[in-house]
């Protein structure tokens, strides 16, 4: 759903009511439907997002692009209920995971976060745990008990999916912090995958890494695409073009809350966007 091009309307939010197609009620194999509907967000009295709507579908990588400071990360954190950890955070709208609003009154936030995982900008493996322990940390933390054989199998499977198994299979008992930056980040991906989420959110996962590691992680993302719904925030346009099938361009004009200017397939956004501002951004005229 994209907004009318700028030449016709004076403001971003002049969209009127949003009409959605009926979402699939069962999760498609390999992921779930995640629909954000009219999300607005505040920190205290400062509004940072206005009426953002986006459908993120299984089997796709959705990239959130845009200059820094326009609310992409805030939006991402709303998707797995990390936004509310800030005491002054406020929120309007709904986020529906396979049709159910994750902010509904009966929803348990810990359950939501198990189904919507997150990988952070700075790799954060747990320093007191070994590599193997880090991978299954999600299970230990949520009190799930697995038998020893299943544990080993889960460790191997997660590390394989994250594309780092071959590099660490001989040192699974070494501390999680003894790896390079790129390996640590893939370990964090493995850790997030071990809880078997339906959606994986990635907040600028490669911005702290070197180009080689970035390439490996982008490969991993492509391989995971068919198994989990992936939403990735990136300020690197070329990465978005490489890795995603759908893109949403966020923008916050000076002093106004951020929002989505245009969203659509990656080819369209990068090839022939509707909005002038999108065209300017993807052609590098501002950043």
């Amino acid at each position, binding site marked *: 759903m994209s907004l009318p091009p700028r030449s016709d309307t004076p403001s971003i939010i002049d969209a009127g009511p*949003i009409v959605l197609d009926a979402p699939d009620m069962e999760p498609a194999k390999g992921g779930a439907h995640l629909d954000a509907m009219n999300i607005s967000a505040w920190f205290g009295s400062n509004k940072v997002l206005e009426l953002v709507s986006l459908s993120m579908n299984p089997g796709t990588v959705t990239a959130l692009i845009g200059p820094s400071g326009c609310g992409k990360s805030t939006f991402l954190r709303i998707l797995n209920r990390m936004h509310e950890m800030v005491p002054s955070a406020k929120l309007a709208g*709904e986020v529906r995971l396979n049709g159910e609003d994750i902010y509904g009154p009966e929803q348990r936030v810990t359950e939501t976060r198990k189904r919507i995982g997150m990988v952070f900008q700075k790799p954060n493996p747990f320093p007191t745990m070994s590599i193997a322990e880090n991978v299954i940390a999600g299970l230990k933390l949520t009190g799930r008990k697995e038998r020893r054989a299943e544990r080993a199998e889960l460790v191997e499977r997660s590390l394989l999916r994250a594309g780092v198994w071959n590099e660490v299979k001989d040192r699974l008992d070494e501390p999680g912090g003894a790896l390079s930056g790129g390996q640590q980040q893939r370990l964090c991906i493995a850790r997030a995958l071990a809880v078997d989420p339906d959606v994986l959110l990635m907040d600028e996962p490669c911005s702290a890494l070197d180009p080689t590691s970035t390439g490996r992680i982008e490969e991993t993302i492509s391989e995971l695409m068919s198994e989990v719904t992936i939403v990735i925030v990136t300020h690197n346009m070329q990465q978005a073009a490489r890795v995603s099938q759908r893109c949403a361009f966020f923008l916050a004009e000076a002093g106004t809350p951020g929002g989505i200017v245009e969203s659509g397939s990656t080819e369209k956004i990068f090839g022939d966007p509707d909005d002038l501002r999108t065209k300017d951004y993807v052609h590098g005229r501002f950043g």
Partner: protein
Amino acid sequence: MDVSVSPVDEPRTIHPGTPRVDRVFHGSVRAVALVVLVIFGAIGLFLGAKSISTFHLYGGRFLTESDWEPSLNRIGISSTLLGTMLVALTALIIAFPLALATALYISEYAPARLKPALVSLVDVMAAVPSIIYAAWGFFLLMPHMIGVSHWLHQYLGFIPLFRVDTDPNAAVLAQARYTGSMFIAGIVVSMMVLPIACAVMRGVFAQAPIGEREAAYALGGTRWGMIRTVVLPFGRGGIIGGTMLGLGRALGETVAVAIILSAAFDFKFRVLENGGSTISKLIAERFGDATTVQLAALLTAGFVLFVLTLIVNTIAAIFISRSRSGAATEA
């Protein structure tokens, strides 16, 4: 099924969905913190409550009377309060420059390999129990300080501070008049104040930004020039804060003063002279044979000390947190 949602752009209530174990967790640690708060509030309230009855009984005389003679029902803390201040001040005057210089030495001049050891040494100095400093002060320091006190009395005795009621030029010097003085007690207390102030100052100096240091050197400054323009201004909050923390410690020191200072209740400024009194010494020595009323009076003295140290330490905290270095550590 068409779902029309008209945008409602008002914040909604977020249901935290906190798992029960977290509610228990938050509740329990909150309860413990509350208990701790209550204990310490109780101390203050308790001491304060007793003060009311004391002031009822003795009135303003409690603050102006210098003597502490329970049998004659003549008790007051004027000399005691003054003594507390004088001992603390003496300790500060000695400790402050030494703490500042030592902190600067460790932070700016010491070879890098030695630094951790020196920092540990300062911590060790702070950890040495005060009873040990007291013993050292009484047996080793005091005999040597008699000579210093005598010299000060002889040559600087025109200053009221340094007067002693004995003849400095007598053939047989009345040495006992110079022992057990607030001066000597102050020196021993300074040994305890110094490491506290030094640790705070050094910690603050270590945070002076490297960029500014390099700028000073790049302009051709000497090491001392750089310290004076970068480190000292940056560390101002820590210098004052650390000193005030030390002051708080000095005000409350009990053991060293009990052992070194001879008990006397004259309201005097003569620090070199034998005899004096501080609040903590008074309480420690007199609580044993105190009647209920006198006990209340001692608690009142304790309350005055309590308020004094609270004020001093609050000021210290303000200085440390307001300074640039304090602001950085809060992040």
